[in-house]
């Protein structure tokens, strides 16, 4: 017999039950750390990954020859410490590096690490010359690795635990660069795994030597790693780490507030103070990553240095950093990455001067009746970006005051980085690059004329700067290197205005109060083997 009232009461009762049931959920027993990653995870082949966000995950499973001590938040730059190489020597002229491979190290699949394995790995991403590729040479990985591998002349295995790298030119930062490239960093992967799963299979079945080993990957959702008990070094403190993929920052913060996430990177600037007020911890630190605007020097309008100088003086970096991105960024002045040895915090770029900027534009033939349109591709989100949309809006507003109408083209991350391989095309005048490394060599790669368009996207070519860069990256004398880079800064940023450094990333990372030993170092990523949970 159908009774309307009874039916509704029954339904309401059912709904109440439905809603209260979830409160019976039991928490997991072992120590699991849940960390957010602010980018898509397209796989875990250490030679192919290309973002800081992924790097944080990769370094739990893989190791390089030499790493840096990221448990020290103050060291600037972080100190080099042995990893798979228990010691190394650099020849006095910095053209030869000898690595002594640690004995007794095993991959997660049980196979051993020795000099031949390291050699195999090198040859997966490097070839001596065209046509001299090893069978395991993998083009997808070689592209990124060429950042440093172009400098390698030869590699020779000396004995079972010694391998020597011969460089084409003096390269004092070579050892650090191997590790810090991010997109093409040199890790040691298991040749047996590549033999078993194929070149592309390694991305889905990662096998390294790190303190954690791969458990499972749910594409678009999570990757789970657990402590590797056969690790050669001190064991990790937590039992497992779950890395969750988030492209929606608001969702990430919401999940963190609910206690569903333990550590979240790239906290949106507006949330930093609010999270701190609510008792959460938010760490910030000066990191190598910076936002700098690359200018298309082949563009007819931008060929005029007055226009470029006007743009540099019209962008109000201080206000942008202090008011819009409070706590999340600082104004950047130098094209030398913060956190790299030759970085000089005292260097200043052209000061903000709207009137002077307008005057320069008028001189160049522009004015309220003769405005110019420029295009800027902008990533909506992605590894290394801070708050790309508001920043783009702020720049647009700044430039519109000096008669430039900036059209912002929003792309998602994947589309954005695929633009880079060909350099800036005629349809784009400005490129907001989120990049930086803890080496001075980075600056050489983005400005040297030989690096067009591989990492020099704006087609900058200045023989004087080339010479200075080559010298600055070849001299083992840090003071000399610093002085040379100072000259580079002066020419590139203030005279030629080939790039406009805008912001330095402070990498705001939030973590729960019960997360212990978390360290945010002067680097674009952090380590987790020392992190513990105390509930």
């Amino acid at each position: 017999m159908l009774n309307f009232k009874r039916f509704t009461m029954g339904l309401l009762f059912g709904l109440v039950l439905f809603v209260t049931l979830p409160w019976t959920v039991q928490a997991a027993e072992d120590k699991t750390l849940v960390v957010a990653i602010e980018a898509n995870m397209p796989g875990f082949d250490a030679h192919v990954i290309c973002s800081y966000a992924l790097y944080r995950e990769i370094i739990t499973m893989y190791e390089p020859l030499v790493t840096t001590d990221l448990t020290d938040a103050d060291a600037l730059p972080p100190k080099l410490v042995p990893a798979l190489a228990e010691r190394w020597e650099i020849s006095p002229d910095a053209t030869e590096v000898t690595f002594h491979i640690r004995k007794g190290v095993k991959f997660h699949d049980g196979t051993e690490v020795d000099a031949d394995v390291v050699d195999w790995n090198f040859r997966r991403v490097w070839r001596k010359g065209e046509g001299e590729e090893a069978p395991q040479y993998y083009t997808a990985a070689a592209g990124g690795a060429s950042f440093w591998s172009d400098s390698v002349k030869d590699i020779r295995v000396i004995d079972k635990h010694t391998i020597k790298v011969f460089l084409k030119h003096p390269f004092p930062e070579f050892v650090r660069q191997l590790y810090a490239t991010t997109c093409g960093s040199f890790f040691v992967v298991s040749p047996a795994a590549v033999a078993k799963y194929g070149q592309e299979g390694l991305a889905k079945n990662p096998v390294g030597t790190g303190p954690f080993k791969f458990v499972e990957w749910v594409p678009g959702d999570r990757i789970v790693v657990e402590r590797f008990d056969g690790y050669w070094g001190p064991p990790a403190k937590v039992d497992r780490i779950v890395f969750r993929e988030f492209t929606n920052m608001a969702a990430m913060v919401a999940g963190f507030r609910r206690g569903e996430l333990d550590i979240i990177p790239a906290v949106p600037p507006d949330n930093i103070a609010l999270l701190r007020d609510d008792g959460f911890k938010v760490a910030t630190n000066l990191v190598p990553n910076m936002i700098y605007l690359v200018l298309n020097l082949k563009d007819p309008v931008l060929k005029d240095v007055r226009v470029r100088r006007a743009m540099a003086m019209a962008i109000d970096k201080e206000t942008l950093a202090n008011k819009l991105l409070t706590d999340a960024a600082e104004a950047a002045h130098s094209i030398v990455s913060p956190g790299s040895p030759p970085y000089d915090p005292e260097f200043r770029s052209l000061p903000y001067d709207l009137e002077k900027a307008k005057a320069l534009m008028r001189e160049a033939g522009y004015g309220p009746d003769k405005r110019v349109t420029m295009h800027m591709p902008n990533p909506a989100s992605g590894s290394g970006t801070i708050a790309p949309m508001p920043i783009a809006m702020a720049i647009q507003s700044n430039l519109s005051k000096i008669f430039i109408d900036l059209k912002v083209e929003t792309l998602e991350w994947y589309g954005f980085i695929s633009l880079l391989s060909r350099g800036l095309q005629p349809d784009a005048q400005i490129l907001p690059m989120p990049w930086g490394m803890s080496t001075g060599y980075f600056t050489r790669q983005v400005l040297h004329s030989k690096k067009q368009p591989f990492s020099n996207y704006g087609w900058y070519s200045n023989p004087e700067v080339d010479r200075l860069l080559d010298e600055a990256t070849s001299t083992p004398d840090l003071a000399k290197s610093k002085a040379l880079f100072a000259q580079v800064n002066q020419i590139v940023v203030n005279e030629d205005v080939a790039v406009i450094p805008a912001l330095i990333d402070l990498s705001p990372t939030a973590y729960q109060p019960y997360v212990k030993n978390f360290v945010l170092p002067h680097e674009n990523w952090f380590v987790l083997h020392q992190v513990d949970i105390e509930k």
Partner: protein
Amino acid sequence: MGRYVLRRSLAIIPVLIGVTLLVFAAIHALPGSKVLSIVGFQVSPEMVARIESYYGLDQPMHVQYARYMGHLLSGDLGYSISRKSQVGSVLAPAVANTAILAGTGLVLAVLAGLIGGFAAAFHAGSPVDRGITSLMLIVGTAPPFWLALVLILVLSIQLELFPATGMYSPRGEPNLPDLLHHLVLPALAVAAQPAAIIAKVARSAMLEVRGAEFVTAARAKGLPRSRVFSGHVLRNVLSPIVTITGLQLGYLVGGVIFVEVVFGWPGIGFQLFQSILARDITLTMGASLIIAFAFVFVNFLADLINALLDPRHEVQ
């Protein structure tokens, strides 16, 4: 009846083919070189070659289409660049997730719609009726993404009752109570528009039937109110409601896409959106085809159920 089924089944085949043509044409009209635009500098020539051979991108259009249809008929949806795996394996779990969300949403919509519609009809003309009708109007025309955000604001952020995103908690193993907890808000958001329409139809169907002659006749015969309801009223009311519920699938699917994006629910709508952003051709095509095909099939089923319930509707 059997002939009707056969006729209708045959009729949808050209529609399905037309769907594949449209999706194929749309995807291939995408501006820029498809391979270059989706491929970063990290992709090997082997992978590029694989994409090109899958499409036969250098071949004329009809050959490419034939090739695609061939793959499709053998169940191969292609390889997704952005996910580095087969499209099928990426989308299969997504379909399941959407089914959970859409199914729950539909159930909630039918329940809420029936209750609301009948309650309004029983109290026709009163403030209760006007209140329910106004509420349904607002909920039915509001954009689903906005409704979702309002639900999040009130029930998740301010009252802290439910999580705001995802299908499961990032922590711990997926389990049923966790799923249900995450399901409430998105299901409500998805159910909103269909519920409003079902309520409207239920209300008017109810009003029509109540005044109808056979009801008066049955009451006059002395049948108790409940027998009148279940025996006569319900059967006549059911038909237009089922019809309209079938039509709600369009809203359901549209709503689901937005709700999945707002809540980050890993269903097929979410995948479609991500694939469009990533300019991943094969994934976009796969997701579009699955959604369109599912839509056609479920409409077809609704038609059949309808014909079953009321033979008068068979004649078109």
